[in-house]
């Protein structure tokens, strides 16, 4: 969208017809990359991300080796055709940051002490971007880790939320932001939890909201998270369902 729209929500409906607490359609597939030890594709609406996991395996370079546990290394990138204007290939400031927070979020659930000196490599690639890519990527990575048979405390689940405005400029909290809302909204927040112990493993905000607005958005996001978690479990188990 070239120019800032007059509103992102009107009459209770967002630009794509959703209500404030609605999330986009979620589709999850596991085992999409046969060469990898585990993999998953997660689609949140038009945002499509593939994650592949390799390892545990020998860690190079050697100076990164930790004698008592494994390193979780993540690499996030976007394909050049994932956005409208060609994305310059290769990691930049933004990609390095997302790789770092993804690795840290995953490290908090993986039982790294089971694999001293090794590395677990996670590659996250955005095929098509329509906002919330880091969270979609983190969800895909979490499923790919489970698919790879890597021991962990539980799954990481993420959802985004943000603040969008109506035609009078009044702000509302909305769940699972898409491109125009991410670009023009007053705030967008990436939020992920280690699902079963309810601990926050990733929280980033662009823009500003009041404490009340934040808590309202978080409450809605928690509902979306519950649904996302169920979909993730369904996708993982679906692979082994006996007909």
């Amino acid at each position: 969208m070239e120019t800032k729209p007059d509103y992102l929500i009107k009459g209770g409906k967002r630009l794509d017809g959703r209500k404030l607490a609605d999330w986009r359609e979620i589709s999850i597939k596991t085992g999409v990359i046969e060469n990898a030890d585990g993999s998953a594709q997660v689609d949140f609406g038009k945002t499509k991300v593939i994650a592949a996991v390799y390892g545990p395996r020998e860690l190079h370079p050697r100076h990164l080796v930790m004698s008592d546990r494994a390193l979780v290394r993540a690499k996030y990138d976007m394909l050049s055709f994932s956005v409208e204007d060609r994305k310059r290939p290769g990691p930049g400031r933004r990609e390095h940051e997302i790789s770092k927070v993804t690795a840290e979020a995953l490290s908090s659930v993986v039982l790294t002490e089971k694999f001293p000196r090794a590395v677990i490599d996670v590659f996250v690639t955005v095929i098509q971007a329509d906002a919330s890519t880091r969270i979609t990527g983190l969800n895909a990575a979490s499923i790919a880790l489970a698919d790879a048979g890597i021991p962990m405390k539980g799954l990481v689940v993420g959802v985004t939320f943000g603040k969008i405005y109506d035609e009078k400029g009044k702000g509302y909290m909305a769940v699972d932001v898409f491109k125009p809302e991410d670009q023009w909204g007053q705030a967008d927040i990436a939020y992920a939890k280690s699902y079963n112990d309810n601990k926050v493993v990733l929280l980033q905000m662009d823009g500003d909201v009041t404490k009340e607005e934040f808590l309202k958005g978080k409450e809605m996001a928690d509902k979306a998270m519950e649904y996302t978690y169920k979909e993730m479990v369904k996708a993982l188990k679906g692979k082994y369902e006996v007909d």
Partner: protein
Amino acid sequence: MENKQLVTPGEVITEGMDYLPGDGTYRDGSNIRAALMGLAQTRDRLVKVIPLSGRYMPKKEDPVIGVVKEVRYSNWVLDINAPYDAVMMVGEAVDRFIDLKKDKLTNYFSVGDAVICRILHIDEGMSVMVTARGPGLRKLTDGQILDIAPSKIPRIIGKGASMVKMIKEYTGTRVFVGQNGRIWLQGGNEELTIRVIKKIEAEAHKAGLTDEIQKLLESEGNGNKA
């Protein structure tokens, strides 16, 4: 008969302190949760999760097939399809004495050689030692090696080696199954053996697989036991 239940990481398997957390599980307060994607199983008071995927983790006494990666002054480094390489010392290679001053180690094993060996020892730092001395352990000089998912190996072997025994009987192929996901085969109807092993790998989570495989072997192997 034990009950098996498909679980994902973090899922509560049992509540209360009556049970003990085994492999692939952990205790969280009074709950036992799954640490792996797999089949949860409770036997006596022990709860464990059998993985459905994942790399091979070396365990003491496991028979494995290693491939020589490096020859050093007094030992060989073997790739055992695990996150960690294994080391075979000179004394563990052959039954006779190797004199480091006179003998060349490459005369015994050189880079690329496949070896049936056994895990001797693993320490906390995950340094793995193997031996090629013992019944059935040797260098492989013929046949072929098939790579399958290590998590499917128990299914290939079957209860009390029933599955692998059956495959050998019907195909006449010599088979050695390494715990690390490498299977050596030689002779007989190798093509059928490979097909059957691949089928077991693909359908490992199904019940009643032994009967299905037996039917396949009977129809494909001309109904005769070799």
